[in-house]
């Protein structure tokens, strides 16, 4: 079947989907994989900015779907990794311009030449989410360790399961170890207790993320960044490696990993 389509979702906006997509794209490419990242957030494109490619956009996703551009013409090669490409979202306001079927056709074509197709899903549960979900082989759900974000993630996981794409694996983003210790933030165990999904990554809060996004050089390229390292580990787990969790003083406990094993995850 060729490459694998991995969709990054969350329900709520602002939890770190786009950040995760950009960093996983870079990390997978640096592992030698051929990768395309697709910005499925029509009307609110920003994956291009975070990857530092906004000045190179000529065509976008809607141009491909509506036949104004060939697939290859619209794909933007990354400045540093020649195995990494971006398909940007359109700026049009018509969210209905792309259908789930269009996305399946598009990704089927991409699977032939690429190891991974990563799709950055928009917030919400509307058309854009269904576009991102339909072609997925696996869904990574990003959540912040806070009650409302976990509640939204739970909703989305329910929809993913109902579409037979589930249950997916979880990225817990913006964990603040000091707050967890003080009992002011949910721990990764608390999040697991509610959602019951295998955790594929725990990303600490890291101010380098924002400056990296502003400069268009995702944080995973910065070896000083803990978040960058954590995203890199997620990429290696996506690629099938068994990578131990970093010491954030909040790695998933032995009990949870046992449960994961027992459930065959």
């Amino acid at each position, binding site marked *: 079947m060729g490459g694998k389509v991995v969709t990054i979702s969350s329900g709520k906006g602002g939890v770190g989907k786009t950040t995760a997509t950009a960093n996983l794209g870079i990390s997978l490419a640096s592992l030698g994989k051929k990768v395309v990242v697709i910005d499925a957030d029509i009307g609110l494109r920003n994956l291009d900015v975070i990857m530092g490619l906004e000045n190179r956009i000529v065509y976008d996703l809607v141009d491909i779907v509506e036949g104004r551009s060939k697939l290859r013409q619209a794909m933007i090669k990354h400045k540093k990794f020649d195995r990494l490409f971006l398909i940007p979202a359109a700026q049009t306001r018509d969210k*209905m311009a792309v259908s789930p079927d269009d996305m399946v056709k598009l990704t089927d074509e991409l699977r032939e030449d690429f190891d991974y197709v990563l799709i950055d899903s928009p917030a919400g549960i*509307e*058309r854009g989410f269904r576009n991102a979900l339909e072609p997925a082989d696996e869904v990574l759900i990003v959540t912040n360790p806070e009650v409302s974000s976990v*509640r*939204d993630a*739970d*909703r989305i*996981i*329910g929809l993913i*399961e*109902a*579409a*037979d794409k589930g249950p997916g694996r979880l990225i817990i983003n913006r964990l603040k170890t000091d707050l967890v210790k003080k009992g002011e933030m949910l721990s990764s165990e608390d999040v697991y207790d*509610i959602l*019951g999904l295998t955790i594929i990554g725990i990303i600490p809060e890291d101010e380098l993320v924002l400056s990296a996004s502003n400069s268009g050089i995702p944080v995973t390229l910065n070896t000083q960044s803990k978040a960058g390292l954590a995203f890199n580990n997620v990429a290696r787990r996506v690629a099938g490696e068994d990578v131990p969790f970093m010491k954030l003083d909040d790695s998933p406990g032995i009990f949870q990993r046992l449960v994961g094993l027992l459930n065959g995850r």
Partner: protein
Amino acid sequence: MHEELIAIKGFSDGLLISLSPTESWQSVTDQLASRIDEKADFFAGANITVELGERPVPKYELSSLKALLERRGLTLSLVRSASNTTQKSAESLDVPTDNGAAPEAAEPMARETAPVNSEETGTAGVLFRRTLRSGRTIHSEGHVIVFGDVNPGAKVIALGDVVVWGKLRGYVHAGAGGDATAIVCALDMSPSQLRIAECVFRSPPGRRKKIMPEVALVRGDEIVVETRA
């Protein structure tokens, strides 16, 4: 008594409402509104599939039906119709559609659930074989078994009993038609709210108890939670 213009069936993840394809739209939707208002408890928060048959429903009519449901806290999650006009209307409102040709396959939850029959004739129920997540509601005119957790933000509303083989942390209403003999069982009983018939029980806040299987039932006019050997 005049003819029923609508039929309502509880199923896996919501309610299926069939509207007569021939009666006037006005009388059909009027009757729907009053049926919902009569049994507000039973309908609470449901995902609704509306079956419209051959009737061509223009966009403005469908959008008023959607609004009628939404005003009552219900979500129009699927429109089942054999009419192209109706399907187009639904699409332009971004409501999923199917043509009703394969009703089982069209309902994504159907595979996950199977009808169960208790010993009493006629009381069918729902078996849900995974975690019921936030935003989802099971409605049943019989019993409900969840083989998984009931998460915060999820709801189970049953005319009969509710058995949760997992953690119960959402909202449960057993005996929702008024049957005070209904019971609720869970491996970990920490509901956000638990109702049996007209009685309401809230988990005492901050209660850090040992986790064990428990049964909630009505004694006198109060809900009590007990362990059973």
